[in-house]
């Protein structure tokens, strides 16, 4: 909400991009995937969520205005409508640019009593960033999340589409080292997995 600042004089307000001003970045694969997904639903509006997952993958893990505008353009929706959907769901990274790996720490009840905040503080000091912040090298983003529905494995982390837990400080050192050596972004990989699930679901 801090972005709500006065932007210029009322008569010189920034305008939303016209269709021909958009910088479309979907790859041919992404376009064909979107076309396939469109056939799964009775109308294009229903395709907004999977469309945003494709965009999250294509735009390197987060959804900026351009990504949202591209999805809206391809699905013939208004920009505002798609932005409203994207900002509603927390798994779409619209609030900030995420790093290559997003470490989500569950701090709900079961994890809490099993030492989630010890893990959380350790991660914060280890990475030198706070909640919803990214390390300067663009490697890690740290985020505190609500219940991940795996209380048997508390304290629990989610990294990409994988649950890790129960974890100790020693595990974290090892996990961070593993992630550093990984060449692929787990954030993009997760988006890709979800797109694949969407594509598969339609072929049942």
């Amino acid at each position, binding site marked *: *909400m801090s972005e*709500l600042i006065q932007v210029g004089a*009322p008569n010189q*307000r920034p305008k939303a991009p016209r269709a021909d001003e958009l910088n479309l970045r979907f790859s041919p694969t992404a376009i064909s995937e979107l076309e396939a997904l469109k056939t799964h639903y009775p109308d294009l509006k229903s395709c907004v969520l999977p469309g945003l997952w494709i965009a999250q993958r294509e735009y390197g893990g987060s959804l900026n205005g351009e990504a949202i505008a591209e999805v809206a353009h391809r699905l013939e929706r*208004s920009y505002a409508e798609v932005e409203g959907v994207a900002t509603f769901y927390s798994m779409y990274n619209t609030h900030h640019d995420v790093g290559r790996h997003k470490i989500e720490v569950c701090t709900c009840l079961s994890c809490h009593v099993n030492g989630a905040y010890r893990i959380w503080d350790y991660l914060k000091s280890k990475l030198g960033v706070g909640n919803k912040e990214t390390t300067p090298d663009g490697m890690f983003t740290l985020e505190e999340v609500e219940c991940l529905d795996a209380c048997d494995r508390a304290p629990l982390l989610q990294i990409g589409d994988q649950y890790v837990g129960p974890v100790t400080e020693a595990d974290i050192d090892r996990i961070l080292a593993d992630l550093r050596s990984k060449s692929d972004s787990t954030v993009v990989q997760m988006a890709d997995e979800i797109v694949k699930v969407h594509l598969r679901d339609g072929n049942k």
Partner: protein
Amino acid sequence: MAAVASEVELVNISINGVALQVPKGELIVESVKRLGLEIPIFCYHPRMKPVGMCRMCLVEVGFPGPDGNIRKMPKPQAGCTLPASEGMAIFTDTEQIHRDRKGVLEFLLVNHPLDCPICDRGGECPLQNNTLFYGPSTSRFLELKRHLPKAFPLSKYVTLDLERCIQCGRCVRFTEEISGDSQLAFRFRGASMQPSTFELTDFESKFSGNVIEICPVGALTNREYRFRARPWDLETKPAICTVCSNGCNIWFDHRAGRMVRTNGRTNEAINEEWTCDRGKFGHEFYNDSNRVKHVMVRNGDALVESDWPTAYDAIRMAFAEGGNRVAALTGPSNSNEDLYLLKKLFQTRFNSNNFDSRWTTYLPTAEDDLQKKMGVSMVQNTIADFESMSKVFIFGSSLADELPILFLRVRKGWFNNGNKVVVASDKPTDADSFAAEVLRYRTGTESTLASGLLALAVEKGLAQVPDATRQSLSKYTAEHVSDETGVSVDALHRAVELVAGAGIITSHGIFNTSQPQDTVETLAGLAMTTNGSFNCYALGANDQGALDMGVVPFGGGMDTHSILQGCIDGTVKALWLVGCDPFELHPDYDLVEKALENVHFLVVMADHQNGAVPFASVLLPETAPAEQDGTFTNMERRVQRMPQVLAAKGSAKPAWRVFSELAIRIQPETPPFGPADCMKEIAESIPSYAVADYANLGGEGVLIR
């Protein structure tokens, strides 16, 4: 309607113990109105789909149990999403409901700032009213309120104050359901949910002003009106918008002689309750500093202040020759009374038929009249007709710009009833977004496209035409038309099914294209032969009235173009411009400039300074529409009365009074004493206006056919 009503199934419900029958599925929030009761609401709006977001309309609901006693549901229900069903018992006045309402309002006021004393909405605010009637008198909330930037300029017209937003979603639903531009959406969620445009860019809508009016708090406010008045200081009078020919009903709010704002006024036949931005924010000129206030007469190079008798004498002298030597041109917002008396003055005192109210490139002649030629009226449908018309064909008009309220009605028909809309236009239009078929033709090929559609309709057996017509259409094969217009053959084939029998909408803007008469006649023929209807709507506020009053030179006079040409070559010696700026209205700027330079005597009658004033021999101040009593005929030929709202500026007079005063100076007679007298005379001499009388022009107005 009666047939439809009888098919509706009725159910027995009871509200607070009073038994009544309502249509099955009617929302409870509407049903209670039948008993004169009221449920407090915020998010519910009768013209939009219910969402149940604010929970203000909670009611207790019960059904009779096996023992006959009412068994209430354990929790209250939202009246705005609850359809009536058999046996339902509603309670709106129980202690439980009073407590619930208090609770809802207390929650809404947790974050709503109590800045009512400086809020534009203060005094006319549903939140204020509901809190007063149903809310708690004190708050138990001691913590800090949510703080967000205030006075964010969402657009040129709309200011957004997020702190005041109660997240009812009325504005968001308006842009989705009514105006259709979907410019607003809720971003984020929970307590941070905020209605806004994409990335807070400019709110670009042709109907953005309405969200200010439907906002139940002061979150969306009018930039023009911001901090200019408190509602209780305003005088509010009913008026008619004179910006375009839709004739929307508005509330005209003024204070100390100044126009402050206009709001939509409900008229189910025309604008329902909406306004367009062009109209809502188009009345600022009443306060302009360049209003013409005094009579000016030319003395050498300068216009010097004078008085009415001097001006009348000068005009009498200059117009004495009469006949083809004098002429008058009128503008779009003169009332029927003005126009009728102008025509009468010219015909009876100057012996002239040189007057015209039309400014298009092509001016239809008396022989072009569709009524005489084909027996087809140029205006066959009302605005409300398009709601239930299953097929609509918009031809060559950007409806949202030219006739915004008709656009909303056509869109409503599509949104609610699934009406099929075909748009034929040379440029992208707002109606494309919901059109079943868009025919994008090359500019200048209007007549070919119309003929092509008629030919195709004949070929497919959708239209029956005489053999001669069939012959003349034979060259318009689908391939030929497609080559000429750039519309694909497939699109033509798909469109013709929808166009046959459709209500055709086009506007007088069509007369600015090439071969407009052919186009209009073909479209009228298409409508006639396929049992559709044809409409060629006027665009200026009272252009239709001017046609009805006969301010067209069909009695042997000169039309607009020949009058201006006559000024140049000296055949027209004296020209009277009535409330019009020819530089703005006429397509040929140079012609106008030459004409005004060369004409011997020019009377400019205007309510504000315009391009013609520097050329004037006599400048007469005219009252603006809201400064005089008068009637206007909108594009569907509905005559509506606009009572005087503001006082006349300076020595300005209504145009009809000027014409009448001048007429009795030339030849005495009993003048009309007021606009109502003028209307009596109009009703006597123009048969279709016989039904119009000042006594019955209130309400929804009178439809002329």
